[in-house]
């Protein structure tokens, strides 16, 4: 099923209706919770994708909230509003690293096993393969394939140049196809790129 990309929605920004990112961040820093909600809506998919490629799925939602609370409380550290996306991504990566370290130190987390649903199993198997890609490819592909962001949106949110995003998408997709082909499917056969997701009804 092809993914559709909705047209950008014109939303009311605080005060003047359409503040730029810097104004939104300044409003958040001054305690404007509506501005925070707008910032959250704009960046939550990027943070979700970064975390999904690093930590068990069951904890991703909680960690997303942790990341945004941390960003809110540390906003004073941000010197350049235009760098917000990259700065937030760094917080997300660091939070994931802390989480994994704490998990090793404190809790023997059970292995994340898919249930009996074959589509669920297929989904988790592909996610596992994507999660083993190099970071730049992994994050960009998850933003595109999981979160439904366009290349332009990925560039705008992450702070990468559009050219870098395009390279990450195409090289990442090429590597993903190769890795998927190398992994046996659930029936013991070798998976082909054209068999990806074919368990779906």
């Amino acid at each position: 099923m092809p993914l559709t990309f909705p047209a950008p929605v014109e939303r009311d920004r605080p005060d003047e209706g359409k503040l730029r990112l810097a104004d939104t961040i300044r409003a958040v820093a001054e305690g404007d919770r509506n501005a925070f909600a707008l910032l959250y809506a704009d960046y939550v998919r990027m943070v979700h994708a970064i975390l999904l490629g690093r930590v068990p799925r069951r904890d991703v939602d909680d960690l997303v909230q942790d990341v945004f609370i941390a960003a809110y409380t540390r906003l004073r550290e941000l010197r350049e509003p235009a760098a917000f996306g990259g700065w937030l991504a760094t917080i997300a990566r660091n939070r994931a690293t802390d989480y994994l370290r704490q998990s090793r130190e404190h809790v023997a987390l059970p292995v994340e096993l898919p249930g009996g649903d074959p589509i669920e199993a297929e989904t988790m198997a592909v996610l596992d393969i994507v999660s083993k890609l190099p970071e730049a490819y992994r994050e960009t592909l998850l933003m595109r394939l999981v979160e439904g962001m366009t290349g332009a949106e990925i560039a705008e949110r992450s702070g990468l140049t559009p050219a870098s995003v395009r390279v990450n998408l195409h090289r990442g997709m090429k590597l993903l196809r190769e890795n998927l082909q190398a992994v046996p499917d659930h029936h013991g056969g070798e998976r082909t790129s054209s068999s990806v997701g074919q368990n779906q009804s």
Partner: protein
Amino acid sequence: MNNDYLWDGSGTPDPDVQRLEALLGRLRSIPPVPQLPETPVRWRSVRYLTPMLAAAAAIIVMIGVAWQSTRGSASWEVASIAGQPRIGSTALAGTGRIAVGQTLVTDAVSRARMQVSSIGSVTIEPGTRVRLVETRDAHHQLALDRGTLHAVISAPPGQFVVDTPSARATDLGCAYMLHVDEDGSGMLSVTSGWVAFEFNGREAFVPAGASCRTHPQLGPGTPRYDDARQEYREALDEFDFGDPARRPDALRVILGDRSNADAVTLWHLISRVDAADRAAIVNALVDQLPMPAGVTREAVLRLDRLALDRWWSELGLGDADWWRKWKAEYPAAR
């Protein structure tokens, strides 16, 4: 248009990308916007602080912290009792704090205790997920998604509230246990004082020694004392949540068991039975608790709120007037 499907979905669709979108798109999730802590944030201003100003700010912060500690801060202290509960995604070892918007989760072997500002404590049992919704002067609120908590509150009524998927429990000066199943149904058991249990206008007042079930679509059932016979409790469950066609049979069991049909249960049933059955319930309650002066049988039969509340107050369990006033000030946030 880039004619590059992988870039923006335009141009000729790539079947592999389409399949991956459909498969991995199942993992998409947008968690709700977190509740922000009360921490004041001042962007960039720190850069321009002189050392003197910094010192002044530090003093102000210390005064602020001291002031916050006397009026209740936006977080609670949490101590691990067993295992390793998690606050958000962080494993709790020893003690920590839970901020507004954060979630405490216990696994099958872990337990924790929350300090509810300065008014009491809540023990979180294994297999529980609970979120701190709000904490400020005279109003502290949790959301219990699943699992079990025990609350012990020493404060004026109404300061401590727990939302569940099927009812809101409002402390009226009490100690109680609240449990929520995976399907959102639940059970409230009160050991001291009384608790108001409410969902979409359906109310139950649960005194010490009594319990009340709740259902996701229907809200609180009818309170009953814990020492009632099993058959009586089952009849009440049938009446509250069972097949409507079996309600008359259930009501016959309830009314026929005068040794178990207590005044608290009967008072609740007045407004829950059909009009044709109401007189029988009123008669049964009159046998146990005479109507106070000024309350008439006619007023009760037409479910006059003031008359019902005055009759409730005769039970000596708490004044219903207070609850009405509180509800007007803190309507359910559903």
